[in-house]
């Protein structure tokens, strides 16, 4: 292995570099902290001395092992940028050589978890389109200013500019009100379930024949206790979920830079995401049931990514929010910024024929579809209307499907796929003849849009 430079700047000019020397510390920070706490508890605990020593030794061994693993992983990892390719070599036993062609980069994120933030480090994460790699290009960790420089360069290369192009300044576009974010995080549909449970509990308690002997009374008390503990657990889980989303989306800001949208968010863990223009596969506007009285909505973005990222936790992390919560007007305005000319909510004129009610009685009042020569906008949902906006130049395939019931009603479902893997634009229950005509029409429009986008 050639000698490795310790400073990061040369990596951008094609010299192999290691990651920041503090990376192992940042990586094991939380685990080590946990183990130390456990060790301290064991040392101060009042067990028999021999068992205590064994446990303490075990914990110490674990801590040492974890630290050694982190240091070794840092030692064997090197990276550089050559031409328009990001190269990462890693692994001690299984050597891995990862190559990321920057032309295919879908987004570049800078993520700083709490421990890394304390040390002044950040991770650069490159999301590239389906190359079959198991992981994204992750550089964990670089110093803050290196991370910013690397991101600027990767984005410049991704846009086919010279590597030295300085990062263009971003214009602030939108800022999410933290108070509203907290309120919105607490307004989850799951609360309704808790309310139902409480109501059921109250009814059971009221119907319980009181005063029919001590035994019956005790039984009732036991049921009430278990109900209360169940509700408490549910409430705790809900609160945790709300806290997580507040933590993730705190201080949410969007900036508009010439090279893409900049998203900044996070309370403990800071994230800086950049989504280059033209990489947006779909935009979705969702109005959850409990938010509707307040007229709030959520706006999300989809970019092309590998299917591995669909695993639950990862998908949540990678979900690019354009606004975790916004008023409907703000949401419409935001959609207009990323999809100029596309309506964010559809008028009833785009609704399917009335007979579609027999197939979709619960969602009929939300179903709608609209398109022009650049966008396809569809609306679906039962209790939670969601509008999906797809740029026609991104269309991968068009599907038409109809089952026995739909055919009896002379209806058909039309779906449009994009390389973003989270949503499909679905125009449901359209008149069968209209849908067949729409397939041809959309095919032609998509073809033309592709030509124009070149």
């Amino acid at each position, binding site marked *: 292995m050639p000698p490795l430079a310790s400073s990061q700047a040369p990596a951008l000019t094609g010299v192999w570099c290691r990651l920041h020397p503090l990376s192992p510390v940042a990586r094991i920070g939380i685990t080590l902290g946990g183990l130390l706490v456990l060790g301290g508890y064991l040392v101060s605990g009042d067990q028999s001395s021999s068992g205590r020593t064994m446990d303490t030794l075990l914990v110490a061994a674990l801590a040492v092992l974890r630290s050694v693993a982190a240091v070794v992983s840092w030692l064997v990892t090197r990276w550089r940028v050559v031409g328009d390719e990001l190269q990462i070599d890693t692994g001690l036993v299984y050597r891995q050589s990862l190559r990321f062609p920057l032309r*295919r980069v*879908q987004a570049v994120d800078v993520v700083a978890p709490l421990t890394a933030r304390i040390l002044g480090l950040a991770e650069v994460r490159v999301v590239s*389109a*389906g190359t079959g790699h198991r992981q994204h290009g992750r550089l964990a960790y670089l110093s803050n200013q290196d991370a910013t420089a690397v991101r600027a360069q990767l984005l410049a290369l991704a846009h086919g500019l010279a590597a030295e192009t300085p990062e263009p300044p971003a214009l602030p576009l939108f800022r999410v009100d933290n108070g509203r974010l907290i309120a919105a995080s607490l307004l989850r549909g799951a609360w309704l379930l808790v309310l139902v449970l409480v109501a059921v509990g109250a009814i059971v308690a009221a119907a319980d024949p009181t005063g029919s002997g001590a035994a019956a009374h005790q039984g009732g008390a036991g049921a009430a206790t278990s109900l209360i503990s169940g509700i408490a657990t549910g409430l705790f889980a809900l609160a945790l979920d709300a806290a997580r989303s507040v933590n993730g989306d705190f201080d949410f800001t969007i900036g508009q830079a010439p090279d893409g949208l900049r998203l900044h968010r996070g309370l403990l863990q800071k994230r800086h995401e950049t989504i280059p223009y033209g*990489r947006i*596969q779909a935009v979705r506007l969702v109005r959850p049931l409990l938010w509707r009285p307040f007229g709030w909505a959520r706006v999300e973005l989809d970019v*092309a990514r590998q*299917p591995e990222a669909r695993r639950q936790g990862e998908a949540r992390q990678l979900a690019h929010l354009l606004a975790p919560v916004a008023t409907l007007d703000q949401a419409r305005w935001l959609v207009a910024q990323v999809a100029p000319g596309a309506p964010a909510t559809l008028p009833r004129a785009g609704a399917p024929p009335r007979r579609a009610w027999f197939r979709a009685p619960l969602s009929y009042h939300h179903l709608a579809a609209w398109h022009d020569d650049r966008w396809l906008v569809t609306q679906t949902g039962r209790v939670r209307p969601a509008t999906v906006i797809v740029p026609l130049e*991104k*269309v*991968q*395939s*068009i*599907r*038409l*499907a*109809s*089952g*026995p019931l739909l*055919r009896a009603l002379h209806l*058909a479902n039309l*779906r449009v*796929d*994009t*390389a973003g*893997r989270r949503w*499909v634009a679905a125009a449901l229950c359209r008149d069968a003849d209209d849908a067949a005509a729409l*397939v041809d029409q959309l*095919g032609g429009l*998509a*073809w033309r849009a*592709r030509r124009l*986008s*070149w």
Partner: protein
Amino acid sequence: MQYRRPSPRMWLARQTVLGLTSAGLAAILGASGGLLWGRAGALVGIGAALALAIGSWLVERGRYRSWGYLERDEDLVVRRGLLFHRLTVVPFGRMQFVDVTAGPVDRLFDLATVQLHTAAAATDARIPGLRSVDAAQLRDRLATLGEARASGL
């Protein structure tokens, strides 16, 4: 334009498989019926197997007839489904790669399945029951068209 259909060999292959499984089923049902209830039982067992075979044959025939594909100037159209109709349109410029697969039965009848993949996971464009020569030709044609019209994500 006329939809092109899978090779009649596919229908032959399906019928052969169906015939063999039906014969096996009839033998099992007939034997067990005969052992339990004598001659009448055997007849009932064979009759049930026969009814099942006729039903499956009708369904299979409908399915076979529903398959069709159409190569147009800019895209490929695949339709299928007896009860649930499906139609998929894939622009040539969006094809990522083309698969040709052939299972053991397919190989016996010199058949192959051509499958198209795009960057969208939901795309489901599959053409089964093509003569392996036709499949290879279609694959090459699609690959050429895809390359000529390829566009970025």
